[in-house]
């Protein structure tokens, strides 16, 4: 049996009086691609942010056996070092070049010679499928897809155990999105990285994710394989999968 790398139990997050998430339970297994689905504003990003320790929450969030709500700062730092995060807007440091952006975690984390850092950065850029020429470019000189890839390279630079991706394919054309999915799936297979991603993109959902959960009305509506999720009896899910945009996946269902 594969162990749970992330285990969330009875998670509750509220902003003042407003509860955003209530008694959420999810389990992410080691080495899988796990998708968080849900309507806009359903609390998907909040769930991810709680696991990333950016949000105050109550309940149990266990990552690699450490309960984040009880852990001391040293343990939390260790967990943070094993995370790689890519936010929705890519959020590259605009005043640094792409190369410098990717090198930031390395320079912060350890005392390494510049030419080795240089090689590591170039390797990561190549790994996510970026051309070397972007090394000296600034983020605003890149297209949206390249910016996302650069952010992915930055998330990968310390060889994280888990990478979190917030809508990795949003704003990309279908070809780039496919390309991006392929990259994620390859990294998952090659390096054994666990991937947790938020997406609305049904191609990513059916194409690469192993398991998923659906957040609905502050709670987890369902958790399981894409096939399980698809056959849930829920109006929003039905609209998602069998509405205009989802139609083509009914074929997938029949396969």
């Amino acid at each position, binding site marked *: 049996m594969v162990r749970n790398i992330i285990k969330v139990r009875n998670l509750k997050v509220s902003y003042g009086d407003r509860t955003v998430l209530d008694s959420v339970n999810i389990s992410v297994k080691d080495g899988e691609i796990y998708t968080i689905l849900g309507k806009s504003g359903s609390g998907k990003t909040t769930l991810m942010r709680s696991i990333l320790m950016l949000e105050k929450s109550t309940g149990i969030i266990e990552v690699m056996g450490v309960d984040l709500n009880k852990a001391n700062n040293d343990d939390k730092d260790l967990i943070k070092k094993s995370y790689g995060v890519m936010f929705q807007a890519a959020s590259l440091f605009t005043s640094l070049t792409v190369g410098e952006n990717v090198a930031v975690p390395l320079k912060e984390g350890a005392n390494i010679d510049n030419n080795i850092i240089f090689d590591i950065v170039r390797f990561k850029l190549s790994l996510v499928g970026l051309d070397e020429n972007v090394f000296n470019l600034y983020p605003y000189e890149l297209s949206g897809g390249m910016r996302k890839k650069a952010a992915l390279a930055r998330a990968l630079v310390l*060889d994280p155990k888990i990478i979190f991706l917030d809508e990795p394919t949003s704003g990309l054309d279908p070809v780039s999105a496919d390309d991006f999915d392929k990259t994620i799936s390859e990294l998952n297979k090659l390096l054994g990285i666990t991937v947790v991603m938020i997406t609305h993109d049904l191609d990513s959902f059916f194409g690469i994710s192993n398991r998923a959960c659906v957040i609905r009305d502050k709670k987890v509506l369902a958790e399981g394989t894409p096939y399980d999720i698809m056959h849930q009896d829920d109006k929003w899910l039905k609209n998602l999968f069998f509405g205009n945009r989802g139609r083509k996946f009914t074929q997938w269902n029949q396969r």
Partner: protein
Amino acid sequence: MRLESKGKKVRLFGNLTYKVIKEFDRYAKKETFNEIDLSGAELLDTSFIIYLLKTNKKLAVSEKQKQLIDIVKKNLKDRPIKIKKTGFFYDIGFLTISKLKHLYHFLVFLGEVFIKGLDLILKPKRLRFKMIAKDIELMGFNAIPILATISFLIGAVIAYHGAIRLKQFGANIFVVDLVSVSVLRELGPLIVAILLAGRSSSSYTTQIGIMKITEEIDVIKTMGIEPFDVLVFPKIVSMLISVPLLIILADISGVLGGIIVAKLSLGVTLRDFILRLHHAIDIKTFLAGILKAPAFAFLIATIGSFEGFMTQKNVESIGESVTDSVVNSIFAVIIADAIFSILFRWLGI
């Protein structure tokens, strides 16, 4: 990380990650060996592999590690890319040229303001009165408390310093001339200008700079609205209205400071002060101050907006623009003040 050395072979154990590169590098530089055995390692990350591949040593690895190393090898390129390095003289030249370019862009901007301004005068309906009113409130009205305080204190301080000397000659009453002439002609307008150069031009620059980064200015353009109509002219008009009014306030408040100090430390009564004031100043003194207002207002508003438009699409650039905006507008205001002084002397005002 643990090390075991056997002749020309080194065995590594434990976590081999980016954290121990330096440690191992130190060892590698000291000792001679030609084979590294990684099969005992618990953890091996790509950063460490890259380092090992660069050392050109023979590697003994497990099957799983070999897969990872193959991935790294596949993506690792030998051809180095060049990083631009510049020399001292290049930097000086570059800086000079960029400053000159900056000035050139400012002149272009002034030209644009002039031409679009003429256009606006022909169609005054395009002027956004609501925006002007809002800006006057933010930049003029809200500056009243701080401005009144500063000019009051300046007036008081001048009177106080003058008082010590004037007492020695028994010329107590001339404190009126001292305070009123210096505040009305010079200090009042200058305090207003410097305060607004810090307060308003920085705010204008930030507003326009961030709008440029978030592409809001492009949105305005695509809507068929002239960006200058919304972003520049309301600011210029608002400053043209606020600055003279604030100068009057600074004048009054500065003289008030003088009145109080004159009473307290020189015994000049309010009645004497006012009577003397009629002899000390006339309308020319007041005009010499207030005539500078339009120039100051124009400089503050245009430099503030201009630096905003010069902002590049990165966060650091905002900081640079705001610094430029405040420094340049204060500099410009003081230069303008000097020119006015010479001009007024020629004209005999």
